[in-house]
């Protein structure tokens, strides 16, 4: 798995290098944006297919939803509390 992760990150860094090299060309940026959207659509479509054919997920969709909601509440509360301290200690103008 580690090699897969390294491959993915290396591909992203390669893209960043190419992006820096191409520079601020609005046309290219627009095309890249559209292609990015389409590859996201494709991946989520594939994820949908995977989930649809996976009986274990389909039979547990309600509990999966509840788990997602509980995790979101945790992430949000944690972030908000940390941000509150950062704000009062470093950003608030006295």
């Amino acid at each position, binding site marked *: 798995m580690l090699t897969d992760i390294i491959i993915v990150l290396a591909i992203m860094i390669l893209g960043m*290098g190419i992006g820096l090299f191409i520079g601020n060309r609005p046309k290219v940026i627009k095309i890249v944006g559209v292609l990015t959207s389409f590859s996201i659509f494709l991946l989520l479509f594939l994820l*949908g297919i995977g*989930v*649809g*054919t996976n009986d274990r997920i389909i039979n547990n969709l309600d509990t999966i939803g509840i*788990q997602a*909601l509980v995790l*979101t509440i945790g992430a949000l509360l944690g*972030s*908000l509390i940390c941000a509150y301290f950062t704000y009062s200690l470093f950003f608030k103008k006295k």
Partner: protein
Amino acid sequence: MKGSLIILSFFVLGLILGLTRFLPDTLLEGDFSIYALYLLMFLVGIGIGTDRDSWKVIRQVNFKIVLVPLSVIVGSLIGVSAVSILLSSINFGEAMAVGAGFGYYSLSSVIITEFHSETLGVIALLSNIIREVITLLATPFFVRYFGKLAGIASGGATAMDTTMPIIVQYSGKEYAIIAVFSGIVLTVLVPVIVPLILEFL
């Protein structure tokens, strides 16, 4: 909001086709999604590389701005770890991988699906979409009770794009740069932190 609806509709379309087994078996196996992920990562990289404005923002700012994305990272990870105690089927590390999406639902869910499981991928997709939707709805409330960084913290990686308008509206224009900076840092870190957590969980 519109973007997440479009993405959800693609997911639902795939879901329906999968449920009805409407597609040929070779497509249903879904082994080539890793190549789609490679393509996406390459494009995300180019997107980051070409965006000169964001590099400029990063160079302009005072160092204490770094504390903002740091708060989001620390807060999200501690928060999800804490609530994972309530969830019997999700362990500590799995919860952290979901939390490390920081609202970037498309990329984090796909990475988690590839490197862990479809179940956790779906949880990450839903959780991070819920995060964006709640940010869009509740930022005025959050800002009132948790200070002016609250919308940025709640939005996470989306503070640079989809949730930025609402953040600027309720925290003020001077927070726009902080929102963009924090959003960029978190967006770049999602594909690094999520796989790392999955590797060591």
